[in-house]
């Protein structure tokens, strides 16, 4: 459901951002 507790929402947001950074490092030229 849409109402994630604030702690989890912030953790999840940070996880998704860092995951994207990690993947960009691993496959920088992914189309």
């Amino acid at each position: 459901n849409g109402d994630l507790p604030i702690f989890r929402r912030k953790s999840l947001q940070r996880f998704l951002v860092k995951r994207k950074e990690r993947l960009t490092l691993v496959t920088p030229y992914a189309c």
Partner: protein
Amino acid sequence: PSTALFNQETLQQRLQTLIEGARESWTYAIYWQSSVVDYTGASVLGWGDGYYKGEEDKGKRRTASSQSAVEQEHRKKVLRELNSLISGSSGSTDDAVDEEVTDTEWFFLVSMTQSFVNGSGLPGQAFFNSAPIWVAGTERLVGSPCERARQGQVFGLQTMVCIPSANGVVELGSTELIFQNSDLLNKVRVLFNFSN
């Protein structure tokens, strides 16, 4: 409340300092926050914050579950939905959500939904007994009475540690085999003793 907010804000830096400053290769760290749930004084450990670093050697261990196409599709679907929930846009165009979701990423995500009442689970036991729990080795994880330890092994972990602090428990997990050392225990005491 301001102290609690300050502690919440600095939790991430403390977890990152712990992981990035360690000699060993830890995959993730989670802070389980303790709170009292009702008039009986029952306490629960819930998600406080987490820091995911990932494995040093990505290709090293992929278990059967992460190789199943159906399982991967399910994980990617969940990640797309979470991404939409967070970004507020439907149909996320973020390429990252279509990349393989590793076992330890999945274990970290699922952990956000977990909580431990009155001494249950690995974190609950460490908090209840005010004593660190260090489980090193696949056999010990598989043989653990705690569901969370067995679950961690299924997702490729070889070491799980739970260290109690004043207001909660610091949990670390690794796909490497890491034996108990006092250096880590001392670092947690310094970083997570919130009275300082």
